[in-house]
């Protein structure tokens, strides 16, 4: 059984008041997330990440397609007992304190008073707002509200957690804490599905990612597979390289960086084959220290995918699975 499964999930919105016309926010998104996986849902602003999450939370209804969580249709009350959700830029009730809000949500989960107190107290500590527990939420900063949002998503020890831009509004320290929290959830066996446009987060946390562009899932797979997919050039490290020899072959080198005296890191294009240059440099007295392929970063891959799938023209292309 998959933790999350969607099949041809599509959502159209009407835009315009007098002459409403359909706008396809999400188109035929089919994906699966295994239990225990940390899945990063990546895409530029407006790609459809939040729309997908709202469909999974049944805050909006699909135009067509199907989605299920833990083998049951989304919106099922039994499913809701086993999941947690952090909305994007969460906002709560002005006149409640953090403690009251979490107690309120814990009581909706049906816990008794002692259990409510225990869970609320533990989570307030875990997200670092225990000191502000009796402060009304209208006095909270964006970052503090984000922490409250994370706490409420974890109240029921969920089996699947959905986090919409969990790092948004947090300072570097807060980001690191949330990263550690996600890692802790992963270690606990919890499935984490999070949307982000910060690729470093996805690279550090996710076992698999999906890339959404223009409402379509344009790629999905394991981070390692996506990155290993493309070699974009070579990095040659050489020693005892004279400036004359370097100048002589400069036109064949993309970028040269001095590492130490007479020692350089040379970036070479993927073609022509670097062996010929290697031979020439050795003939000129240089010593080869290393030659490594330069692989794409997730960012390179992401930019390439997004750039080759402009929102208007990619509606008919199928998503491709790289893993």
């Amino acid at each position, binding site marked *: 059984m998959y933790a999350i499964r969607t099949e041809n999930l599509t959502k159209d919105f009407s835009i315009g008041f007098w002459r409403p016309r359909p706008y396809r926010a999400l188109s035929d998104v089919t994906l699966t997330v295994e239990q225990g996986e940390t899945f990063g849902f990546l895409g530029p602003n407006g790609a459809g990440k939040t729309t997908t999450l709202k469909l999974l939370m049944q805050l909006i209804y699909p135009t067509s397609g199907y989605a299920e969580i833990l083998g049951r249709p989304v919106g099922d009350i039994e499913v809701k007992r086993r999941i947690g959700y952090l*909305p994007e830029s969460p906002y709560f009730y002005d006149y*409640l304190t953090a403690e009251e809000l979490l107690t309120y949500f814990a009581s*909706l989960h049906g816990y008794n008073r002692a259990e409510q107190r225990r869970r609320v107290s533990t989570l307030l500590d875990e997200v670092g707002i225990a000191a502000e527990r009796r402060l009304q939420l209208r006095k909270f900063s964006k970052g503090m509200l984000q922490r409250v949002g994370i706490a409420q998503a974890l109240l029921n020890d969920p089996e699947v957690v959905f986090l919409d831009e969990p790092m948004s509004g947090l300072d570097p320290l807060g980001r690191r804490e949330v990263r550690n929290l996600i890692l802790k959830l992963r270690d606990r066996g919890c499935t984490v599905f999070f949307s982000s446009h910060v690729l470093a987060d996805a690279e550090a946390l996710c076992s698999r990612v999906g890339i959404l562009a223009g409402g379509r899932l344009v790629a999905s797979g394991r981070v390692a597979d996506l990155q290993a997919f493309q070699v974009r050039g070579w990095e040659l490290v050489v020693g005892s390289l004279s400036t004359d020899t370097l100048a002589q072959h400069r036109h064949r080198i993309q970028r040269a960086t001095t590492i130490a005296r007479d020692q350089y890191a040379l970036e070479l294009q993927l073609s022509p084959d670097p062996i010929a240059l290697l031979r020439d440099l050795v003939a000129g007295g240089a010593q080869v220290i290393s030659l490594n392929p330069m692989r794409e970063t997730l960012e390179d891959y992401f930019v390439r995918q997004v750039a080759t799938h402009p929102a208007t023209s990619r509606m008919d292309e199928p998503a491709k699975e790289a893993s």
Partner: protein
Amino acid sequence: MRVVAVIAINVFRESVRDKVLYNLVLFAVLLMGVSYLLGQLTAGNEIKIIKDLGLAAMSLFGLFIAVFIGIGLVSKEVDRRSIYALLAKPISRQQFITGKYTGLVLTLLVNVTVMTLAFYAVLGAMAWKEGAWFQPHWETPALDPALLKAIAMIFLQLMIVTAVALLFSTFSSPMLAAALTVGLYVVGHFNADLKHFENVVDSKPAVYLARALYYVLPNMAPFDIKAQVVHGAAVPNGVLMLNTAYAALYILALVSAATFIFIRRDFK
């Protein structure tokens, strides 16, 4: 049921912390106090003035509370997106609507109780000040328990207004919802005229439309028994029971309609 109660208690807690509510209740109590002063200016009829003004204040400020808090019940949750996290909890949209409505009725009940206590306190003060000599000349005793009947009918009206506000807030903006709710409240007091529209116009379609509107729009006039109570006229229990049954059915229809709309709504 437990979930509905949890949501209702949260609505109540949020409402009582809202300064707007305090201001409205304070104004109502002040108006009752002023009615005492006005009563001093009239000869012989002071107790009637106090009762008239007190009940009118309760009705008017109750209406403000029902409208201003009622329209925010759903629209505020949607506008501020607090509904996103809430609906991801193990609750249904139907429970959400029922809980919200119950919470506001609870808030109204507490407010009407506070206003009633203030009202009786002013009447008690008047009775104590005037002494035994004046009291036999009053149409009804100062602390007339029949006033509670009028207050109960005001409360039922407010429950209907709240349900109307809830219905409008499920699909329109707060301003529009407020305007529509107040509009329906006013129209509701003249609803009886629609029943006999054939006495005014000859056009058959217009008469049918008026008749249809008579049955669809809330009929608020029968709930207004203030004048009868103040003048000491008997209000049969049958009327009170009929009004209660009508209010219950009308509220059920409104809350059901609100739920029907809300269940189908996308939260963009």
